[in-house]
């Protein structure tokens, strides 16, 4: 369980997050809100990539700390950028991050197939279309089967087929005890599998709704 208490982030004079209090339960939570509402900032705080100006973030009661290797091995994050090296092929990129996370090459092939990139594995990442790159980024984030998955706009630039593959990959990752936060403008994309939904506006949570057992996704 991840708990945020009074988390505040300020960029110079702009307040990106206003004293956020949030209890993130296991399962997948959709994170919605207009541009500039603080979705990406919240994801970066949870990934440990951004230190909040105030407040605390704990995971199962332990303060979140990116300096802790054990924490890093449990987090999967895909931000705005793909996090891939243009000059390496998709497969080389995934094998690189796989090796750094102690993942076998067979898992790389599995992920390539899951996001529908098995035929493009040999392509340089820099030559992929924006949509295909997005799929590769999701595959990279899911590669080591993280306990905490943070995806920032995983459906950006994706066609229906690609979006379906990304959803399938997230559903395959989702097992009891794991926590995911998926920021997106496409609410209907995550509707099929999300357990909860958060709406952010101007750096404040204006709605946090958890599905009832009767509404639970299949």
């Amino acid at each position, binding site marked *: 369980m991840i708990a945020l208490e009074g988390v505040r982030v300020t960029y110079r004079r702009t307040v990106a997050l206003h004293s956020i209090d949030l209890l993130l339960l296991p399962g997948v939570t959709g994170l919605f809100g207009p541009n500039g509402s603080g979705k990406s900032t919240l994801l970066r705080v949870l*990934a440990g990539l951004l230190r909040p100006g105030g407040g605390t973030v704990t995971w199962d009661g332990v303060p979140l700390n*990116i300096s802790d290797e*054990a924490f890093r091995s449990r987090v999967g994050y895909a931000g705005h950028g*793909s*996090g891939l090296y243009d000059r390496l092929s998709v497969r080389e990129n995934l*094998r*690189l*991050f796989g*090796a*750094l996370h102690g993942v076998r090459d067979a898992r790389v092939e599995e992920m390539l197939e899951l996001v529908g990139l098995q035929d493009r594995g040999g392509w340089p990442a820099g030559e992929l279309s924006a949509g295909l790159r997005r799929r590769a980024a999701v595959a990279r984030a899911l590669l080591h089967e993280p306990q905490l998955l943070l995806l920032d706009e995983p459906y950006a630039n994706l066609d229906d087929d690609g979006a379906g593959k990304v959803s399938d990959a997230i559903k395959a990752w989702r097992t009891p005890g794991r926590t995911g936060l998926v920021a997106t403008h496409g609410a209907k994309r995550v509707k099929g599998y999300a357990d909860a939904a958060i709406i952010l506006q101007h750096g404040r949570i204006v709605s946090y709704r958890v599905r009832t057992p009767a509404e639970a996704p299949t």
Partner: protein
Amino acid sequence: MSAVSAPGGRGWAGKTLLLARKDLVIEVRGRDTLPPMLVFSLAVTLLLAFTLPDTSRPSTRIVLPAGTASVADVLAGFIWVTVLFAGLVGFARSFEVERHEGAIDALLLVPLDRSGLYLAKAMTNLAFIVAVELFLFPVFAVLFPIGLGAGVVAIVLLVDVGFVAIGTLFAALAAQTRSRELMLPVLAFPVLVPVFIAAVELTSDLFLGRPTRAVVSAGWFGILLAFDLIYVVVGALTFEFVIE
């Protein structure tokens, strides 16, 4: 087998080598860093060849406004200024590949001690600097009357260690600023001064034909070793704070 698969184990050393190899593979494919460094070095060398007067003997004195200097002093100064600027050109680019597409975020979340990230980047930068020197010193030896013995090689490698240690650290720091190309020299120059003064003094003595043993026992050698040690320790210990 993938060009960037891990050599051997997946421990700290294996992951560090893997990251260094990744950078070298990217450079081999993209040629974004080394060619500008080499072109800069060649341009400075050729300019110097046309500028210096009779340089047939290293002990020839050249009259300067502030006094006189030997050809060896001037050549040592120019060769290290060239290495310094070429190095900074390369170091400034070394974190570009990580910034592009947010790869640095993915890298910061891998379970590898930050010293591994630092060492990997430093090893790549060292490879680039050594490549420049392998080109630059022979060209200098052809154009000017300098000898390249084991003593020069040892001094060059020691200078490189300190240069790369602090250059990599400041490159990581500068990469997080908007005017990173400008920031790197501004940050690095003052800190690198002792190493490069020692480098000039030591290589100048060697160019003049002084025995390596006598040069090594001089005070500048101790200064160079001391700063190397300080820079490596400071670089390894502070990189975590800089990169995060």
